[in-house]
């Protein structure tokens, strides 16, 4: 029933909650306030923004990989993992885009920076949305799963091209803004907090995907039983 037993999933969720609380402490208490140039208090959003964006991309990689395995093996488990990854990934990307906008406006006077990372984030977010929507429009669940898998694979294949194109485009249009993606030199506390946030979001990702995939597994079992009963 799903990819991990109930005990493991509850443990993961608990762990994620713990990490998250600790992360909040680090972000709001431990790290000193940033410089004026970086936005003072608003800059703290950076610790939500970067991990969300990164985890969004990791979810995409997981979804694409699971999609390939699903098409090869046709085992429902892999479709559930891909689906769960896509849902959680969409959530992460939405947070990344929202926090990116909130941070960018006061600091760089623009709502979004179309640098390589920005473009990639936005594009993958759209692919994920298409991935989820196509399932609801498919005539059957199985067909929807196949279509979605194809979309995830196409998205993954397009990533290197988007990266290159956005990079060259950036080079052509020289009003380069060091956007939210820039790291530069970081103080010790900032680096530590950032790393911890990354781990927090990773644990959150794993916990949520496991939970969602298991849920999906239960839903599918119910459908199966319904079918058998009416036979």
């Amino acid at each position, binding site marked *: 029933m799903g990819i991990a037993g109930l005990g493991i999933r509850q443990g993961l969720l608990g762990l994620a909650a713990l990490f998250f609380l600790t992360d909040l402490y680090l972000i709001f208490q431990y790290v000193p306030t940033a410089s004026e140039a970086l936005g003072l208090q608003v800059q703290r959003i950076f610790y939500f923004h970067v991990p969300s964006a990164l985890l969004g991309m990791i979810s995409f990689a997981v979804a694409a990989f699971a999609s390939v395995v699903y098409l090869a093996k046709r085992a429902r488990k892999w479709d559930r993992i891909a689906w769960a990854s896509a849902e959680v990934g969409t959530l992460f990307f939405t947070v990344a885009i929202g926090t990116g906008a909130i941070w960018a406006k006061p600091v760089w006077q623009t709502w979004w920076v179309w640098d390589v990372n920005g473009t990639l984030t936005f594009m993958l977010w*759209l692919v994920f949305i298409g991935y989820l929507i*196509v399932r609801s429009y498919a005539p059957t669940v199985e*067909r929807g799963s*196949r279509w979605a898998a*194809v979309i995830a*694979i*196409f998205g993954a294949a397009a990533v290197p091209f988007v990266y290159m194109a*956005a990079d060259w485009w950036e080079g052509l249009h020289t009003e380069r803004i060091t956007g939210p993606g820039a790291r530069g030199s970081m103080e010790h506390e900032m680096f530590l907090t950032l790393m911890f946030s990354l781990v927090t979001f990773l644990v959150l990702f794993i916990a949520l995907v496991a939970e969602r995939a298991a849920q999906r597994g239960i839903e599918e079992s119910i459908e199966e039983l319904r079918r058998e009963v009416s036979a």
Partner: protein
Amino acid sequence: MIRYLRSAFAVYAKDMRLEARTKETFSAVLAFAVIIAFVFGFAFDPSPSVIALVGPGIIWVAYVFTGILGMNRTFAVERDRGTLEGLLLAPVGREAIYAGKLASTTTIMLVVEVLLYPVFLLLFELNLFNIWFVLVTVTATVGFATVGTLFSAIAAHTRAREVLLPLLFLPIILPVMIGAVASTSAALSGDGWGGVGKWLQFIIAFDLVFLVLSSWAFDFVLEE
């Protein structure tokens, strides 16, 4: 292999014959393209400096959106009229059907795009009769069509195909859009191979990768 080419060509010839006879898709796509061009004409003050900046963007937005209209029709019409099953029942690999459809969609799009050259000249004084621009047009259109034909097969089986095709299609062909706009900019300012070459190779690489990928995925998409 011969079988593949013969069937792909049969599908292509059939589509072209139908199009020549009814001019359904062609006229809808051409009309839409001209309308978009005119809308941009009203929206922008066509002074040379403005056009130099936004011209390439306008051209490719027009081409992409008319392309979406054309690509949607590729499979929507076959499905609605019940002839798609006839193709699916044929004892040929699905890749052949994909190839034939890709060819007919690309042909229609290219014809419309070229017919738009005088329109752009008239409205924006953009002279598109430029070998580099032609090369970009051909390669970018093929790029759109490889992905669009496949996604059209998906969208045609749903209720919301007008919305679904753009949503699925646009993020994937984003690199081609960027490449097309950048190289058009270079081509129109007379850059030749130096400015255009890199982008042209990039778009061609995209075309090849997605041609193979779409051909492979086609079977999965059509399976019931």
